[in-house]
């Protein structure tokens, strides 16, 4: 027998042989290996070692799934080494989303899942670790500069003891019930996560609403696009995008407002850059930082932070003045135009120029380019939404699209680029305090009755509190017990010093996560959960595309699937939730969410489907609202906005404006990406970006340490010279706990969207040496 025939024979019998270094690995799950074949393997050992390539994709198992990082939701084929239970390669797959493209996080950032820091056993806080408080020196706020910047397990773990799942779950449920029965349902709250699947999000909000008995359930969408969604629901009756980002290829103009697209939605950015490069699409970028997209732009308008309302009002002023509006569309499809017209009349480009710091001529020229386009698309990000006037910013962009008739056709539309891989889905699934799944209001008696019937319990009619409000209520002692699934508010919420007090003040906290997070230091019970790669579920991307993420790896040790943990807590609180699989949860969810009607795991297939999808044999509806808007009148509504400055303006004591956000290589609070070898190697720590002239004025060289302080806290980190910044502005990413940007940020909220003002507060910068 030759080696080739031997391999053929083994393959036919489903016996797998792999090489790892100088070892041969054999797996015979079906007992199909005969003694003769085993002898042949022994005899051919040397040839097999020479033939088998330890790392070739052909010897690995492929799993068709999606990316766990951003809202673009790239289709990925993972190549899994089953013997070692590790992912070796990630390849982009053909899909309408990414056409095989990936970014650095998707291609190289999957290895966090196999990091030795993974939690594997439930943990219970030891008696000696009470009264509660932060456990590590860094989270306590005592400055300690140590490289690496992850929670120090050696410092924190001794304060917890290992427990069985039974004990941990019983304790969690007993304490939550105790608080509920003593202080009422309003004393409990839950934070879900936009990193979890639709199924997990659905079950989480069901648990909080049906078993906790409260609508105090929210998640990180509150911190990214809550204001955009508020404005969209108010004006056009739907919080999702009206067109997919890929359709930019059919647009004459693409406007990018407040989005560092190449950093935060890298693959979506490739389609926008490609459209620009093709010569078809003109690109207008409006941003306070000269981001990479600006290098590709036909018009780049570097406005001062927080002046968006004045800026877009002046655009509308120009469009109206010069007759570049779509009168027919305004007459047939919209309402409230006169009120808007009256407001923007005061915002000539000259007035706006004084506020935004951009030449009036340039404002006019860019506005005309937008107004003359037959088809225009508007993309926006956190630069629009994360302000105390974030809802107003979004209203302006929506008005701009409405007055030029740029919604409902190919190459047109509104596209708030969603952040997390499942921020659209978690919102659709109802992890929002004022709505049930599919944005059905908790205050509507008919809707409530429908959900009461479906879930078999009476439900609270009062909308719940939002993320930052819940933290405030914890500080005030109103919220006593919390369940957090995959959120790390200690680093992600504004004003860390306040969050620290709030978390300390909680009587009982359950944290369910994959690593020991800063937030977990305040927990009474920590439940080890699974990563994206260790479970199956559906995720909805920024385009409304519902895609299946498929299990590729085994959970480590005693870690359990998130949806199972949620069900277990429910059962122990006297509210049994029994399902065989995530698929069963998905059908319950779709039955209650009309937008998802008709979707099943089977018809989602390899590339998913867009919701709504009235005919599951097709891909779903790409362009929404061609005829009418889902509002009461069927018309889109203009909601005018007046310019208002940010809450905390720079002054003599705090002369710089702080802007916060993300870096291409990292993700949110860094728990995943800082444990990925490649991503960590590329960008191991924080920097503050500053204009060269500002650095010079401070007498600081590129790379030297500076102290950045606001009225709420201070951090020390290296300065990076960046000619992409405006003078007087600094930018700090929020991934890095050793220089947590959110120690500085202000916890003022947008009145409508309840989103904090991450993009603007006043700081002071001084040399740290």
């Amino acid at each position: 027998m030759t080696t080739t025939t031997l391999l053929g024979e083994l393959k036919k019998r489903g016996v797998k042989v792999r090489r790892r270094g100088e070892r041969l690995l054999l797996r015979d799950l079906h007992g199909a290996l005969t003694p003769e074949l085993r002898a042949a393997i022994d005899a051919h050992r040397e040839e097999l070692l020479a033939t088998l390539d330890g790392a070739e994709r052909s010897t690995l198992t492929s799993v068709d799934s999606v990316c766990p990082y951003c809202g673009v939701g790239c289709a990925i084929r993972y190549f899994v080494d089953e013997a070692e239970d590790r992912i070796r390669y990630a390849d982009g797959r053909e899909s309408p989303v990414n056409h095989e493209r990936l970014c650095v996080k998707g291609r190289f950032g999957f290895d966090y899942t196999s990091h030795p820091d993974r939690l594997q056993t439930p943990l219970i806080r030891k008696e000696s670790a009470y009264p509660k408080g932060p456990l590590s020196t860094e989270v306590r706020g005592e400055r300690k500069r140590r490289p690496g910047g992850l929670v120090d397990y050696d410092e924190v773990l001794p304060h917890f003891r290992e427990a069985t799942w039974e004990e941990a779950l019983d304790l969690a449920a007993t304490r939550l019930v105790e608080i509920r029965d003593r202080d009422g349902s309003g004393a409990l709250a839950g934070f879900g996560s936009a990193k979890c699947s639709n199924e997990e999000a659905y079950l989480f909000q069901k648990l909080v609403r049906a078993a906790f008995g409260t609508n105090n359930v929210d998640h990180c969408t509150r911190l990214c696009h809550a204001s955009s969604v508020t404005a969209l629901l108010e004006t056009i009756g739907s919080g999702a995008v009206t067109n997919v980002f890929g359709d930019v290829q059919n647009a004459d103009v693409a406007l990018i407002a407040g989005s560092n697209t190449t950093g935060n939605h890298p693959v979506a950015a490739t389609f926008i850059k490609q459209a620009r490069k093709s010569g078809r699409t003109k690109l207008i970028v409006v941003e306070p930082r000269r981001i990479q997209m600006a290098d590709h732009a036909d018009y780049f308008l570097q406005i001062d932070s927080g002046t968006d309302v004045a800026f877009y009002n002046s655009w509308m002023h120009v469009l109206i003045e010069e007759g570049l509006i779509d009168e027919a569309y305004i007459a047939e499809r919209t309402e409230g135009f006169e009120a808007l017209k009256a407001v923007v009349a005061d915002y000539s480009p000259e007035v706006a120029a004084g506020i935004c710091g951009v030449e009036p001529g340039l404002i006019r020229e860019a506005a005309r380019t937008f107004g003359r386009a037959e088809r225009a698309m508007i993309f926006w990000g956190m630069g629009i939404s994360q302000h105390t006037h974030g809802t107003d910013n979004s209203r302006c962009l929506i008005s701009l699209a409405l007055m030029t008739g740029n919604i409902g056709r190919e190459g047109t539309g509104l596209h708030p680029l969603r952040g997390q891989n499942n921020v659209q889905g978690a919102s659709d699934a109802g992890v929002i305090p004022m709505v049930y799944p599919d944005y059905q209001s908790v205050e509507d008696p008919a809707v409530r009755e429908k959900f009461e019937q479906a879930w078999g319990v009476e439900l609270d009619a009062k909308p719940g509190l939002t993320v930052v409000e819940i933290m405030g209520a914890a500080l005030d002692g109103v919220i006593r017990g919390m369940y957090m699934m995959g959120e790390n508010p200690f680093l992600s919420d504004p004003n860390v010093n306040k969050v620290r007090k709030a978390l300390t003040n909680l009587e009982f906290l359950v944290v369910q996560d994959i690593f020991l997070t800063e937030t977990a230091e305040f927990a009474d019970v920590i439940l080890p959960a699974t990563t994206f790669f260790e479970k199956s579920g559906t995720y909805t991307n920024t385009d409304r595309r519902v895609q299946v993420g498929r299990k590729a790896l085994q959970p480590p040790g005693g870690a359990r699937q998130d949806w199972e943990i949620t069900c277990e807590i429910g059962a122990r609180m006297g509210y049994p939730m029994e399902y065989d699989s995530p698929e069963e949860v998905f059908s319950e969810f779709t039955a209650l969410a009309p937008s998802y009607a008709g979707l099943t795991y089977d018809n989602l297939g390899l590339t998913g489907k867009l919701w709504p999808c009235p005919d599951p044999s097709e891909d779903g509806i790409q362009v929404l609202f061609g005829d009418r808007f889902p509002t009461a009148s069927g018309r889109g509504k203009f909601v005018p906005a007046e310019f208002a400055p940010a809450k905390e303006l720079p002054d003599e004591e705090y002369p710089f404006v702080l802007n916060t956000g993300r870096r291409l290589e990292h993700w949110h609070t860094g728990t995943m990406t800082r444990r990925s070898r490649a991503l960590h190697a590329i960008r191991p720590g924080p920097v503050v970006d500053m204009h060269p002239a500002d650095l010079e004025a401070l007498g600081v060289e590129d790379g030297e340490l500076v102290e950045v302080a606001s009225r709420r806290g201070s951090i020390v980190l290296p300065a990076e010279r960046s000619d992409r910044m405006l003078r007087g502005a600094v930018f700090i990413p929020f991934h890095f706990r050793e220089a947590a940007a959110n120690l500085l940020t202000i916890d003022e909220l947008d009145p409508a969207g309840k989103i904090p003002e991450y993009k603007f507060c006043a700081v002071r910068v001084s040399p740290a040496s």
Partner: protein
Amino acid sequence: MIDLTIDGRAVQVPPGATIWEAARLLGIDLPVLCHDPRLEPVGVCRLCLVEVGEPKLTAACVRGAEDGMEVRTSSERLEVCRRGLVELLLSDYPIDASGRPKTGSDALLALASELGADWPDRRSRSGETGEAPRSRTEPAGGIPAGQGRPLDGTSKVIFVDHQACILCDRCIRGCDDLQVNEVMGRTGKGYQTRIAFDLDAPMGESTCVSCGECEKVCPTGALSLRVWEEPPKDAAGSGNTGWEVL
């Protein structure tokens, strides 16, 4: 629509389609190194050569299909040409480049084995010549290797071996046309012609954003993955996967 025949089989394609695309419709996979359906064809590797009844052979990836065209995709002459091209490409190919991990492929070596190509390192590696594989700067097969072309290990994720590069430009098109990062181009003249990052900066110091597209499309392993040795998983994680160590 345009009607043509390929290897005697009729096929109809829209105007603007290439011979390569027409052949694909018939399920004929013409060998290519420089082409990828996601990229604009450039016709530099010449491996997709076909006969169209003209004195010269033509590259199917760039030649448009024409009405009444009679195309032959295989013949003795084509095979000799293709094999010769691959042998030339491999004449100074560093064999150690083929062992590195990659998400791209070893298309060049796979093609060489498919076409039965013969080149110095294959012979020395298989023991036919009794010689050790040559070093990177040794002349091979009578062709002077010059100073050799450099290695670049400055990127944290991708290793560049310029000696293994066949200048097919797939990486450059991947970077500039697909991802539109516009970091890559070419530099140098003659034998020293190389792919380059920015104005010939080391990859790790360039404006490269590490998306990996260049490595993904590279057909030779000139761009390969830098993979770190992973620590072994603990017993709890790998105890019950059903694998037996021999």
